[in-house]
């Protein structure tokens, strides 16, 4: 079965690029959330295998969203997604259970490599 992915990013352009890259590679994108509230709601309703999470979101920071996501979907793997300049938050995110960090602008190869590796990693299940 195809792995199911939820994309969280407030830019439509970014979501579209990520979605194209992931669906082209055979993943199923089960939802696209543009803010934290949507992300939490969609994660609960779609139970994705992996979530790509933008660090800066309109309603709250990606870090708050990460904490909520870890609570409602402890088995979902989370990969942070951010442009350079937000390394501090990203480090904190990794400490809070995010598995990896995709730096914008990203190449297709890089995204697929990181997502593939994160899906292989079952550390988050053990942590849960």
């Amino acid at each position, binding site marked *: 079965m195809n792995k199911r992915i939820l994309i969280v990013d*407030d*830019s*439509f*352009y*970014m979501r*579209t*690029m990520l979605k*194209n890259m992931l*669906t*082209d*590679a*055979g993943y199923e994108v089960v939802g696209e959330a543009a803010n934290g509230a949507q992300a939490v709601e969609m994660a609960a309703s779609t139970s994705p295998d992996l979530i790509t999470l933008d660090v*800066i*979101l*309109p309603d709250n920071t990606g870090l708050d969203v990460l904490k909520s996501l870890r609570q409602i979907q402890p088995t979902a793997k989370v990969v942070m997604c*951010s*442009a350079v*300049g*937000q390394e501090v938050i990203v480090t904190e995110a990794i400490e809070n259970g995010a598995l990896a960090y995709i730096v*914008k*602008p*990203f190449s297709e190869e890089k995204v697929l490599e990181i997502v593939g590796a994160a899906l292989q990693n079952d550390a988050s299940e053990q942590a849960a």
Partner: protein
Amino acid sequence: MKTRDQEYRELFMAEALEYYDSMSRHLSELERNPDAGPALNELFRLMHNLKANARAMGFTDLGEVAHHLETLFGLIRDQERTFSGSLIKVVFAGVDALGNMIRAVGAGQPLPDATVLLDNLDLLVRGEEPILEETEEVETEEESGKKMELSDLVYIQVKKLDNLLNLVGELVIDRDRIMTLAQEIGNPALLATAQHLFRISDDLQYSVMDARLVGVGVLLNKFPRVVRDVASAESKEVELTLSGQDVQIDRNILQIITDALLHLVRNAVSHGLETTAQRSAAGKSAVGHLTLSALTERDDVLIQVRDDGRGIDTEAVRRKAVERGLTTASAAANLDEQAVWAFLFEPGFSMASKITDISGRGVGLDVVKLALDSLGGQLRVESQLGVGTTFTLVLPTSIAVKGALLIEVDERPYAIPLMHTDTVLALQPDKISVVGGVLVTHVQGQAVPLIPLRMLLHDEGDEMLPFADKADMTGAQQVLVVNYNNRRLGLLVDRFIRQQNIVIKPLSKPLDTIDLFGGVTLLGSGQVCLVLDVPALTRLFLTKRP
């Protein structure tokens, strides 16, 4: 043809212009109230997004200005700088520069130079005074004279378009009723208005359907990657040709057939096309050819998946169908190619267990049939052993919305397409007579046979319908007069519910053999409602009347 790069560019532009407008709005707010936290957070976020998107598109300078402004807004947010004095001037100049750069991207022009601005932003980030030139002041004064520009693109959720289409459907039903009323009343002014309403709502319906159309290319352009992956996994060489990407189709239809198309393409590469060695042995070119094309045929859109592979081994499918108990050996022997190939689309039918020599088509192809059935589309198969196979999906351009009358019998709702309904009557028993074992009434001087719909629905076997009896009839009888082939038939029902737009979905197995039902629809409440097939009801009545 719209390539993915063009699509990205349009998305980038639309979003960048939106960001720019929001930035200007938040800046004005910040100017009025320098401590406005939410405005600062938003400016920071918008700069961050613009930076990331611009860099992804390769607009380095634009990304650089946004990056500097992001850093600066971060500092202001963390109260290391205040939004005052020369900083305000540089920030405004910065946002103006962003606007100019975005417009330059949109016009396909080189981006304006931003060296001075970047230097000043650098100074501010380091906590030093920027170097302002006199001319900059003049430039900002000209601001009010500049043209305002809004994006020509609006992004809209499909859900909203669905809603619009449903509303138009209802409007069309009311329009038709007004048209009928106007004709009955015969007032010329009313008739003229009704006719105008007719044309306008027709245009409206067409416009809404048009707004939902997308190029088939948005789906087809995903396939080079799929083909490459499957081909490399199978160690085959495949050349994919796409055509007809700009053929227009309803977005939801495209969504529904996505999986079906994916299936057909994967199947074509892994089962249809031979390995390089097999192809060479058969005297074919080493590279397999796969063509994905879209074309318009009358009101339909055709999507074809064509390969020059081994073709379908009809005899192998015939044997397999008998093995699977789908047909008897004697019946199978008489089936033509098309009828045999139809077995490939039976649920669970697979040729995969018989690998090697036999064309291993059929893995999960029922998915394809299901998707097409749900749309009222068709599947055509052409194949020649050793030469190749073509699957053609015949799709409606737009999702069909039909008007129907909902009625109730034994507490179940049924829908009858308005196309076949004639009149609705409430008849007292004294208006109904029994003639030759059949209930009859007169409508506009013409004798119309009546039958309780319940009786047709419950009919089984070859026996004739029982002789009619009106002894137990009490009170007004609800009659729906339907019309098929100029033959009228009155159906006695328990109750009329309402008129409604419905999207008819064909029945799935095993119900699809019951020809009284033309399909099924979902009511607003989520309740499943069978759609009655008036021609079939009429035929049943005619063959079984006493």
